[in-house]
Every structure is written in C-alpha cells, then in structure tokens.
C-alpha cells in the first residue's frame, strides 16, 4: 500500500454483524458460522474504522496507545486491514 493510500477510509460491510461486548469486538460474516474476536490493537483499529477515521489517524492512534514506533504501527495496521478486506469484512 502506498503512502497516498493512508488517507483511505474503510467502511464496514453492511452484511457483517458486529458488536463490542466486554472489551472485545465480535464479528459475524454473512457466510460464516462462527464469530471473529478482536482484542488489543485489533480492537483499536476496528474502532477507528467504525468512526470512519483515515488509516493515517488509525496508525497514529495505535502507535500512541501501544508505544510503538510509527513505522511498526503502520506495518501492523496495514497488514490487519488487508486481512479484514480480504475476508470481505471491510470495504
């Protein structure tokens, strides 16, 4: 993903059911039979996506909250959103 893409704002697939319960994000895809659970940084990234934040803002937030260098946070966030996108959870 190029640096320009860091301005990208993802949306959650409307067919995906999701809730935050007891500090965990629980996700059910339309064609899955079990829940995905997000904790820690995954939860933080998800909250950023829900709030329609740009990727750059999400990266900054992860970097700040988890005390990570921004380059590391960027790598983690991009890998994570790529996975969510590949699974059709975010668009």
């Amino acid at each position, binding site marked *: 993903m190029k640096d320009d893409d860091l301005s990208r704002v993802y949306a959650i697939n409307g067919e995906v*059911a999701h809730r935050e319960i007891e500090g*965990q994000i629980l996700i*059910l895809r339309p064609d899955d*039979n*079990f*829940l995905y659970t997000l904790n820690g940084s995954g939860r933080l990234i998800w909250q950023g996506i829900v709030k329609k934040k740009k990727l750059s803002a999400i990266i900054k937030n992860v970097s700040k909250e988890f005390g990570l260098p921004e380059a590391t946070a960027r790598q983690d966030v991009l890998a994570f959103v790529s996975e969510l996108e590949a699974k059709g959870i975010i668009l």
Partner: protein
Amino acid sequence: MRNDDRVITLCVGGFPGTNRSLLNLEKTTGLTRHIVLRGSEADGADVKFYIELLREKKPTCVLFGGWSPVYDVFLKSIRSLKTEAGVYWTSSPGQVDISEEAEYMVSLINSRRIKHRIFANGELAKALSGVSHNVKHLPDTLLFPGDDVIKKPKGKKDELVFSLFCSPFEYKRKNVFNTLLALSMLKRKYTLYLNGLSKNRFYGNILKTLGIRYRDFNWMTDEKYQTVLGEVDLGLQISFAETFNYVAAEHIVRKIPVMTSRMVPALDCMPAHIRNRLVVDDADCASEIRDKIEYLTGEADRLHYLGERMHAHLKKENERRIGQAKKVLKSIIE
C-alpha cells in the same frame, strides 16, 4: 446473519455431528442459517452477541442443536419476541447411552417453550409423535464434492488402504475391536488409516498384538481429512448403532465404497446387490467381516465399480432427503 434468515440453527461447538448436520442443512436447503456457539458459558461474550442479534433480526424460529443448558438463556431472551423455539435431536436411541440424555429429552418433550421437536432419526420421530405435538423427522443431507476432489481409479494396487475413522468416545459403538480382529486374519497386504485410535493405550496394544499395519493421522483438520480420504480404497464402518453415519457418507460422496453393518442408515438407499456385498449381517462376527473384505478386494475393479454405484444411489437419495428437509423447514417458516 441476513435479514431474510427466518430459521436460525444454533449449536454448541461440542457437538460435532450435530454441527455438521446443521451446516449441511444450511448449504443444501438454503432455508436456514447456522451458527456455532464456541463457549457454553451462559454469560459469555458470544452468547450475549447472538442474543442481541436474535433480538434485532427476530427470526421465525431458532432451532437448537441437541441440548445444552446454555440454550436456556436464549429461550428466555426470545420469549418476548414472536420467535419460536425448536430442538434438533441427532442421537438415535441405540447410539449413546440414552440414560445420560433421557432427562434432557423428557424436559424438551414436555417443555411448552419448545414448539418444534425435530429428530434426525425417523423412528424416534415416529414413536414420539404419539406423546408430543409438532414432532418431525428432518433427515440428514449431504454436500457432494465436485469431480475434481473425487477419487480417481488407480488401477491394480498390491497394497490397499482401508480406513477406520471414529471419535475416541465411539470405539465400542463403531465395533472397532471386531474390525481389527477381522483385519488381523486377512491374507492380503493393506494399510489401515486411523484418526487417533492407536493413541488410546488399550487399542494401541491391541493393534500391536494383532500385527495390524496402520498409519495414524490423529485428529485431522478438515483439509487434511479430505486429503487422507482421497487415498482410501475401502472404508470400514461396521457399527453397532448409528443415526446416519456421516463418515460412511463422506467416503461414498467421493466414490469410495464403505463396508458397514445393517445398523448404518447411510446405506439404506442402496439396492440389494450392493448391500449384499458391503453390509455385514452379524457385526459381532469378525470372520464374516474378514470374508467380506476378502471378497471386495479380490478383484481389481470391484471396489471401483461399487464406489461408482454407491455414489450414484446416494446422490439420488440425497435429493430426496433435501426435498423432505425443505418441506419440514417450510412448514416452520410458513
């Protein structure tokens, strides 16, 4: 979950057979949506998630797989909705020690909160319809793989592969000991594929003592299982009791013949000339099992021919079962 999902099937993860059955039901009928409950804690996060979702989606019916105390929470939560509750029972009376399940079954039959009482076992449904209302038989349905994953004939093989797959708590019901005794009397070369049996201390010793040549893959992922299944020439499922026997069906849908007992309904649809070759009259007779294996493996093309014919018959039967399952589900939806 989609808004048009009118029948939600929900099952705790600890019932693999019931989950498999309900997943197949979703895929073959398109009339249900199945969800697997990983935890069984009433106050667990996934339970809360699904309860909120059910309240939001208001399906026509929630069909619980088997019975688990955690379902009580769901029953309470859907009481205020117009959602009906049902239970899908997969065990047959002889499959497990029913005394362990009898208490649940009786409470379900008498429960006013459970409207639909659905059984995978036709005889159980027939018998209980006299004492309870809304009792239905919902047959198991199967997913047939595409030709790309179906076993290809390999010509004559000196050493055939037999399979004996079952869960650790099923060894007695699956008649494992008689099957091993039969194999120990075989003259031909073979390898027996297992999924954990040799790890059991007692059966490990029996395998060794009887000189059974085996490969144990232990408990397999579905992907691994499909690969291993592709190498099998003959399945062995000479059970004392079964509701359906998915393992037998999983062989047949890949054109792999399976030897069974009379108690395996997966072979009920086979014509007499196939049943005579593959169904053992006396499951408690190791020499009869041996004789049948020797006959089946006596000619190179026999297993291939039987695999093809069994596949065709099961496919036809599966279409009938899907039709019947759709009828039952539509009676709930409408």
